[in-house]
């Protein structure tokens, strides 16, 4: 069984400040893995532990600086990790889901997809469902406790924040994760120029003309 975990990187809100004048967050410090992604990884770990012949992969849509977040997935015990290089903050949820679906088609469509049930990639919690639809998955389920769920094939599990207690990775896994090779795909190579067009995020002033 091939299981893919979709994880994300978020700004460090203890260091970043919101600028009222610019109406945007002025980020400081490296991006972090949010708690819900840790819950996703713990869920994947539990699927692997309770099933045989499971191969696992983490997928993150982000920039090169965020590869540290992806490496944490390897420290959590996932077998492989793939970074989709792209300007994640400029993409709307539909484009993000198309990029992820394309990447999964390229890597091999997984049997099970595990994703956070809240605002994954800033997409209001719709990402997992959208990817599932694009990949033709028949079933999506929000789970609190993955151990009680049955990981049948072609299924998306939406994991809630706090659904489990993520274990702390051990030091040996951390050290190995630091030097393990990451697979990298470029967003612009996954979709053609025309496909890349999406709903643009514009300011209120622009919208009002």
């Amino acid at each position, binding site marked *: 069984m091939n299981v893919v975990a979709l994880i994300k990187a978020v700004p460090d809100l203890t260091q970043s400040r919101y600028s009222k004048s610019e109406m945007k967050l002025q980020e400081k410090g490296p991006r972090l893995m949010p708690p819900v992604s840790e819950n996703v990884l713990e869920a994947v770990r539990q699927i692997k532990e309770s099933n045989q012949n499971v191969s696992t992969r983490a997928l993150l849509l982000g920039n090169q600086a965020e590869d540290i977040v992806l490496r*944490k997935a390897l*420290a959590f015990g996932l077998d492989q990790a793939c970074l989709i290089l792209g300007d994640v903050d400029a993409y709307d949820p539909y484009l993000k889901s198309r990029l992820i679906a394309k990447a999964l088609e390229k890597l091999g469509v997984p049997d099970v997809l595990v994703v956070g049930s809240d605002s994954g990639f800033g997409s209001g919690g719709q990402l997992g469902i959208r990817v599932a639809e694009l990949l033709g998955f028949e079933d999506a389920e929000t789970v609190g406790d993955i151990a009680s769920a049955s990981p049948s094939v072609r299924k998306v599990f939406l994991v809630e924040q706090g659904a489990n207690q993520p274990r702390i990775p*051990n*030091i*040996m896994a*951390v*050290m190995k*994760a*630091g*030097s393990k090779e990451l697979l990298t795909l470029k967003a612009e190579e996954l979709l053609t120029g025309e496909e890349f067009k999406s709903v643009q995020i514009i300011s209120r002033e622009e919208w009002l003309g």
Partner: protein
Amino acid sequence: MDFTFTPEQQMLREMVKKFTEKEARPLAKKIDQEAKVPMELWKKAAELGLMGIAFPENYGGAGAGEMGYCIMLEELAQGDASFTVMLGAHISIGAMSIYLDGTEEQKQKYLTKMCSGEYIAAFALTEANAGSDAANIETNAALKGDEYILNGTKFYITNGGIADVVIVFAVTDKSLGAHGGVTAFIVETKTPGFKVGKELDKMGIRGSNTVELIFENVRIPKANIIGKVGEGFKTAMKALDRGRLSLSAGCLGGTKRALELSLNHAKQRIQFGKPIAEHQAIQWMIADTTADIFAMESMVYRAAWAHDQGMRITRESAIVKMYCSEALDRAVDRGVQIHGGMGFIRECDIERAYRDARINRIFEGTNEIQRLVIARDVLTKGAY
């Protein structure tokens, strides 16, 4: 110059930080009150591989080097000082003595179990009449057949009462003095004649186990000599070089925690109609501790990096130990001052931090000895 930590080091810091916040810090008050580190905490740390952090993978370690080890102690020290000292004595001077000068057989037999946390290690150099004057030790070992017969008493031994293995430094030839006459032995604590004396009731780091050890005709096989006969003092000094640096990383963590506690209090304590953090007198103390942290970080990781590059760091570790232990003392003192009367109350974390900090200027070589080491090194080798 690139001062960024590697991805491994960043992840390591985050991992230890989580362990500290989840497992160690919540127990700190209890550890202080009951004067005991629960073995459950040791086991949890062992499961994560913390005891093997500084050692190579072929001994069950993580191969994170001195940099990784310092990062770990810096983070742990923000949770509980007693546990940090327990772990530090086990790794820095106990297990490290075997790693530095032990035989391959000794490493496979003992170091692997120390890395896994199955064995707890202690380092027994100090005696009642041999503290700063470490060369004046009286514990002796006499060769009889294929064994050495060990007799004497060691004092102030961290982990001594809970250790499985103690590295004991004993005189094997009094006529040769410290350099040539002292040998390091691996002593298993289940060996007949090994006795634990009284446990010492301390001002701070109350949870770490500090005892007197008594050796009465303890028979040690020759195979348990670390390095060569008569070269024990060299082993001790090399281990202490490492120990001083990692101790300093603990001081750095303690200082960061003292600042965090001080800031938390200063932001919420209102006097004269505003948080005391807005008063200049408090701001100066915050600035001074922040400056100390910057200096400590710079020197701890520069020395750790130098060590990992294979450089000898005798002078550097003495400088770092001296500076960091005194900076920590200044930080906790300011912290108590910022807390005012509350800082003098047992319930308050900064009160415990104040007591825990004091030992750092004394153990692993008093700061007076560090100054001596630094000055002698400068006078013989030049300043730079």
